[in-house]
């Protein structure tokens, strides 16, 4: 199970924090600090796995992280998750963000923290991986966004209309992104 998902920037400023296991507020901040401390020291050419910080459960837990331009995406998982699987899940998550925000950058995460949470909710639910298919995730988020638009004064969209929207085929979005400094680089993973 995934115990926590932390996103912070190169300076350790939290951008999105999601705990799936209860920690007191104070401890959460401590975990964020410690994780940042551990992760930020590591070069880009070392492995993406770190074994347990002292706070989040000890040696059975692993930190699996990816570093994109200005942001660190850290997943804290227990031994029941596959390391490489999670590593690719992070990639899926970031690529999804990129699709939803069109050239996602750190500022998107700051100002649309709530939206990022909604996207994350479609990927991971209560610590369990819910969906790994990017198109499916985007479709779910789109569905919710349409509700947002349709909800001018109406209380709720009728279910049928919503499901019709959901079944529409979404156009394939361009995948490649121009990489500005603030953008999160989403490298198409090199085959090896």
């Amino acid at each position, binding site marked *: 199970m995934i115990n926590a998902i932390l996103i912070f920037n190169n300076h350790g400023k939290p951008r999105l924090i999601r705990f799936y296991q209860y920690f007191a*507020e104070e401890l959460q901040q401590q975990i964020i600090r410690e994780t940042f401390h551990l992760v930020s020291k590591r070069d880009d050419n070392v492995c993406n796995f770190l074994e347990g910080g002292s706070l989040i459960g000890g040696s059975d837990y692993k930190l699996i992280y990816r570093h994109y331009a200005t942001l660190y995406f850290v997943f804290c998982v227990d031994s029941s998750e596959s390391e490489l699987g999670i590593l690719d899940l992070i990639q899926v998550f970031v690529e999804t963000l990129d699709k939803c925000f069109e050239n996602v950058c750190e500022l998107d995460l700051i100002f649309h923290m709530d939206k990022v949470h909604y996207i994350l909710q479609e990927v991971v*639910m209560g610590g369990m991986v819910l969906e790994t298919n990017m198109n499916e995730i985007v479709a779910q988020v789109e569905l919710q966004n349409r509700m947002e638009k349709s909800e001018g004064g109406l209380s709720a969209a009728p279910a049928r209309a919503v499901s019709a929207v959901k079944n529409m085929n979404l156009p394939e979005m361009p995948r490649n992104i121009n990489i500005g400094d603030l953008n999160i680089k989403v490298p198409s993973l090199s085959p090896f």
Partner: protein
Amino acid sequence: MSDVVERTLTALPSLLSSDPSPGRPSSTSKLGTLIRGITELTSKHDEEKLIQRELVSIKEQVSSPNTTMMKELMVRAVYCEMLGYEASFSYIHAIKLAQQGTALDKRVGYLAVSLFLNESHELLLLLVNTVLKDLQSTNLIEVCMALTVVGQVFPKDMIPAILPMVEEKLNHPKEIIRRKAVLALYKFYLIAPNQVQHIHSKFRKALCDKDPGVMSASLHIYLEMKPESYKDLVVSFVTILKQVVGGKLPIDFNYHSVPAPWLQIQLLRILSLLGKNDRSTSEMMYEVLDESLRRAEMNHNITYAILFECVKTIYTIHPKAELLEKAAKCIGNFVLSPKINLKYLGLKALTYVVQQDANLALQHQMTIIECLDHADLIIKRETLELLFRITNGQNVKVIVEKLLEFLRHSKDDYRNISKGVYLPINECTYAPDNSWFIRTMNTVFLLVGDQMQPDIPNSFLRLLSEGFESAEEDQQLRLLAVDSYVSLLQEQPARLPQRFLQVISWVLGEYSSVKEGLEPATVLRLLAPLLDLRHCSSETKSWVLAAMTKLSAGPACLSVAQELAERHGGSLDTTLRQRLHELQHLASDGELLRRVLPCSDGLEPLEVDSTLSFLDGFVSEALAAGAAPYKPPHQRQEELAQEKALSVEPYGLSLPLSLSSSSIAGRLSPTVLSMSSGLSGNSTELSPKGGSALRLEGVTRVWGKEGYLAKAALKPEEAAKTEVPCPLSVLQEGGSAPRTPVVSLPAPAPGPSLQAEREKQQLASCLFMGLGSQGAAGPCLMGKAEPTRHGFRKKVKGQGSSSGARGPSGDSASSSPSPLSAQSAMDNLLCSSPLDSGSTPSPADSAPSPADSAPSPADSATSPADPDAEASSWLFSHWVLVVGVQVSRVRGGPEEEEEHVEGHSVAVYQYSLVPTRPSVHMELAGRASYQRPDGEPQSTPFSYGLSLPDFISRPLSVSTEEYGRLWLASSNDIKQNLALLSQEPDPLRATLHRLRDRLQLNVVDIIASEGIVACQLLQGPPCLMHCRLNAGCLAVWLRSSLPELPDCLLYHCQRALAQH
């Protein structure tokens, strides 16, 4: 300020003006102002002030009823919380927002709730009705949101209220709803397994869902459950995996052209759980595993993920040589990969595999050496972990040297994570000599000090006190320890870490007498300055004082003690003061000291009156003086919970479904239900973690002769045999030159690097010393060990699949609790006449009349009168008799065991029966076949009924404290009211004694209107029972770690009390 932040700042205005969602400009700008404000600040202090101001303004606005602002305010509150500032005032508003708002408001509300609150927060109860309402909504999105929040945070006690609704959603036409419902149910299973015991069938149904997403969501639970409970699903899992691997899924599920990789990973994990120690199950999966290995082309990260899982599965399940070879090759690919992540996983896989196949490590020894010097500490650590797995007597020095080097150079952060690393030192098994061991331990203590796991010093101390085989060695070890500690204390005690000081003081207190000429007073003077150290914690001081107390004999010590008492007598630490008092007192009274702390070398445990009966007088006095009687903690909790128990029934909602929520409760009242979940939840939350997680270590060696190890080790063995026959020199020979692998090394690079390369090889030969020879010696050893191991495995298997019938009487005598001695069995045989065999259909009935063939009156006899009847024997004087005993059980197949009895002879066979899982009734059935002299074969079936009490061993004697601990450790519980023997003067006592007499339960304790009772299954877990007088009946609460046990026992309790 850094470059990036500056750029962020310059980008801010443009971003704010070109807000992508123009529909709500105000919301972003408010948050934007806040964020901009924070970014502009330089000090933490300013930030704090700003946020506090912000929180105050949010608080003001939030309480004024303005719904349009609400969402935005909530997001701001979430932002503040993320930065670590508490916004608890907004929690209630988040719940309100979820309750009353539009769907869009709800979304924010639910999100805030799931971020703010935890499962045990009391405000969550206010959310239950909202969730109920939304679950019934016709709006898909609302249902989705409700399910999401249920999966994130939901109060445990309230699960019954919404369970039926969530279950109903499993049949929803939309797959996303079904998927979320499955995950929500799984979450329930995790937090309160008792309340959802019936859902397993639902998961099986979900497994067959036509949508692969729902199917993969249903897999989670199988990783948590015990594999025995779903062995029948192996075929399904294999089929699913086959289809996935074969590309039968829609193309949507492909990720980088790999079909559903995450699903594959999960399936492989489940297979490895299922196939572990189970040959027949493993055989079913060989084909698909082979297919997976073959299909996974090395082109992407995610294929490696699948491969890694595959390799792990292959090494976990019952081995198959061909697959193992392929898997080993795969591991090679990992280890040799230039990608650092893969290297890491390769090392991990090696660590996992090396216990079974040490030669694999030999193949990669040069890579391992390189990894030892890798820049990445994580890789280094993993390598050390691997090395420790191959530690033996010959390479221990080199490996430990490497470890110490690692500890010296690594940063603090990495010290505390290198837990497993101390293992081999601690084991001490391989330590070449005592002084080396003590020196190494000293270095480890000094280096790691207080970040050490507490179990390391503990086991070190245990080692010192329990010692090894020879007493002389032990004394030497202790002497060395005392010597080195005395000199350490003389040098610079201030520098020593706390834990080390504790170890030192304990050892000195206990063993300083070992060293001749070392006066206790001298030691006392050495220890005394420790109390003055400023960084010395009060815990350490207690250790020091305890040591001093042990030593404080003689007038010299008294003066030290008094000196200390004067100096520290004014300390604010009460523990310290008390210890000082004790020290002073004991130092002045030698007689008392000897009585309190008897000097004995032996380790005989002291007799401790764990029932604290010597306090009875005190208790009765206190009771007489009006003190409240003692209540055990669980009862206190229970009463507390009863006081504030919540009704689970949703009110105000006229749900037709709510009746099923009460049907779940069944015979338990709602309050009891919530109570039991509250209590048992704690203990069970932990258990699945340990049970299901794929452990890398401690996997049993399941390889047989046909396994990979034997084959690979063949070569060194041959070499060793031809060269030197003496086993001792084989070891040395093998050690100095690990032949096979070195030959296969890449040719050393010419020039200056040659030297380095040679060094590395030298290191390699040191590190892997003994491994090759182990391989060489292995097969010889194994040649002997093999048959017995085979035999053992067979037996275990028998036990697993059905109730195991233990082998020949020789070893069963030791395992059966009340073995009938051969003599008594004979007596039994001879005394009981055929008429006595009672209900058991005696073979004599159908056998030819005894009179005309046998002089003895007893042709057959069983011993049905004995409740422990575990032996059935036949005595036939004239015929060859074959008795086949077949043991059939509720679950599991039959087990055949055959014995032949020669004519004209008496044979006694004893078997011990161990039920794999308890059930109310069990039956032992068998068939006796025999041949009459005229050649006609005949056979007679017989059977013998057994019930659970037959398997309850003699009273499980536990103390009340142990009972308490066991109670908390057991997870499966059941509650029921039993009839009381109310006509007796002391009904509780009488009832419990009845149970004791009938069922061999042990009455641990009876206090006032409560009693605790314990019993233990033969070679099985204990079952605990807590009884309380409650309104004319006996409220019992049974607990055990075995799920079926409480139920069965309860049934027998009812029976025992019903029979008068």
